[in-house]
């Protein structure tokens, strides 16, 4: 009724077709994308010394991307802004334009994400540029967002006992004076200092920005 070769060829061809279409074609076309100067390349190659977008991350930020993956941050945070007519991403200032394929060509591991149990982070470096704010959020997200579902990453920080008469280390976290009732922190006589992983992670978060213009994704100024 159903000879083996027909079955074999049929199911193989169907799968090969979808692999060619989705994986191979995109591997070739997206693989041809290069970083370009803001606004696009005007007739010919870019000049030496020109800033190319998307920008290369610093070594510390690249290590931060590994820390981001290691702790599964991508399970709750996306890194993609939808187009202006799709949801309220741009209206609620998650970005100034939609994300496009070129934005990700320099990433070793692309972490677009599928769920927003926390807000999108594609432009967190623009929205929350200050390191201390990010550190405090990692230490306990409910200090600034009382309803946050984010687990505390206090294990990314070192607790140092403060010696009497000596000032706190420069890198120590600065907490707000008033904490929400739901947050109980034992900070008396202690300085909270970020570990190397925490510093890398924050450098990575600060580097997340898609605020430049690309020819395929122009920033439209609203009236």
């Amino acid at each position, binding site marked *: *009724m*159903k000879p083996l070769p027909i*079955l*074999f060829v*049929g*199911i193989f061809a*169907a*799968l090969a*077709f*979808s*692999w060619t*279409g*989705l*994986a191979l074609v*995109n*591997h070739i076309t*997206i*693989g041809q*994308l290069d970083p370009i100067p803001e606004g696009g390349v005007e007739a010919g190659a870019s000049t030496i010394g020109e800033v190319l977008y998307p920008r290369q991350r610093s070594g510390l930020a690249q290590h931060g991307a590994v820390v*981001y*993956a*290691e*702790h*599964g941050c*991508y*399970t*709750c945070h996306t890194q*993609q802004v*939808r*187009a202006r007519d*799709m*949801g*309220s991403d741009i209206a609620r200032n998650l970005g100034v334009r*939609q*994300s*496009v*394929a070129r*934005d*990700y*060509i320099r*990433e070793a*591991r*692309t972490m*677009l*994400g*599928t*769920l*927003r*149990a*926390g*807000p*999108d982070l594609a432009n967190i470096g623009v929205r929350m540029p200050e390191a201390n704010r990010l550190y405090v959020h990692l230490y306990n997200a*409910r200090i600034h*967002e009382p*309803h946050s*579902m*984010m*687990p*505390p990453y206090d294990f*990314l920080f070192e607790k140092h006992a403060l010696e009497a008469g000596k000032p706190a280390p420069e890198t120590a976290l600065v907490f707000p004076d008033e904490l929400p009732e739901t947050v109980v922190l034992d900070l008396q006589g202690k300085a909270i200092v970020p570990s190397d992983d925490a510093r890398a992670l924050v450098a990575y978060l600060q580097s997340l920005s898609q605020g430049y213009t690309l020819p395929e994704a122009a920033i439209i100024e609203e009236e």
Partner: protein
Amino acid sequence: MSSEPRKSLCPFGVVGAPHQLDAVNASLREPLFLLLLSSAKWLSFATLVGLVSAIQLHTPDFLSYCAYMSYGRLEPVFMNALVYGWGFNAGFAVALWLMVRLSGTPLRAHALLFTAYFFWNVGLLIGIAGIIAGDQVPASLLEMPGYATPLLFIAYALIAVWGVLAYARRERSTSYISQWLVFAALFWFPWIYAAAQAMVVQAPAVGVVQHIVTGWYASAVIHLWFMPLALAAAFYLIPRVLGERIRFYYLTHFAFWLYVVVACWACGRYFIAAPVPAWVMTVTAVASVLLILPCAIFFINLLSTLMPHFSKAANSPSLRFVMTGLLFLGLYVLAQAAMMFRGLNELTQFTFYIKGLDMMGLYGGVSMIFFGAIYFLLPKLLERQWLSTSMMKTHYWGATAGMLVISVSMMVAGVAEGSLLANPDPSFSDALRIVQPWLQARSYGFILLLIGHVAFVINFHRLLFPLSQQRTQTHPTLFEAAE
């Protein structure tokens, strides 16, 4: 089942003389015993981890003292243990059993299977430990680190080679829809896995290509592996238990090939408004909607065979699980297709809706049908009957209610959250406040699931390792005592 010989439409009515059947069962006993025992262990582990990570989602402080116990690691551990531990071990067992029974020849090459079994479970242990240690790969269902996955691939390739050989060497020239589905699943998966491993895990491709391949892979795990196996089991169990032929059997040819073509592309939910080429979004969204068509035909076949004998089917533990599983599979296909439509995709994308969808596709439909198959095949293999009807009932109601609570609460939460966020004014934390009670409901769903699974595991262990003084029962265990 009546002993009257059947023609090609229901080929397993004429498997051969009883002594041959015994040989078939005997040859299956050891490999299936091992596979199902491992699958039950992974299921218990996955349910426990799932419960912890579900609680962590609404109570972030719960057990998150160190990196190893934080949500970002436990959630991938839960999904991987559920999919590769429970789903694949049980899926291998179901696939082997269907292939061997339908080809009517005893299972050969035990050594190959034992090697595969060993590699699979050791690879999985290393992979799960790798996620906990912090080596996870940030891609859905591909989280296991690159040093563990080659073992899984070798194990899988051995099983697939074995299955394809079993089909090629079958003694009867006839073939049945279940055989094609199992054959397709066994053949497809190693290619998909190899492609995804190469392009995402071992040598990551450029930028969003990783996301495209991950979406293609994660959908394929459901559509090209779990769903064909579940449908194959349903196409075997329903006629077998009821002693009826599949109605409108001729439609299955058409549905099978349509399924083959469409299912390979049905990954639209990962690409809605994503930074990928527009045609990728369009083609995959169309395929995700088209998937309804072959599934609807399969459902017409199965349900029109079932419905005239509904009370008999509901009384059989295996068919009751199969029917519930089919219901969940149907809901999954529809809920996924609904997500492709403009308006609803805007609301549901990135919300907890997708968690409900994942759970329904990866756990709900498929696991229920696998449970049904296990309830049917184990007594036949071991020549002992299930001991406790009440345990079976607890399992059934716990799993069904748990699944319903989890998936419905997540879908409702997703739509509520999405509707709120569609308006730019409410803040993100307003949306979190709305989903909070639904996330708590999800944890209760996991508790129900845990109760069901504990009942299953206890019943399962008592069947596998009987005490000597246990009464021996000859008739099959049903929900209501037969008259």
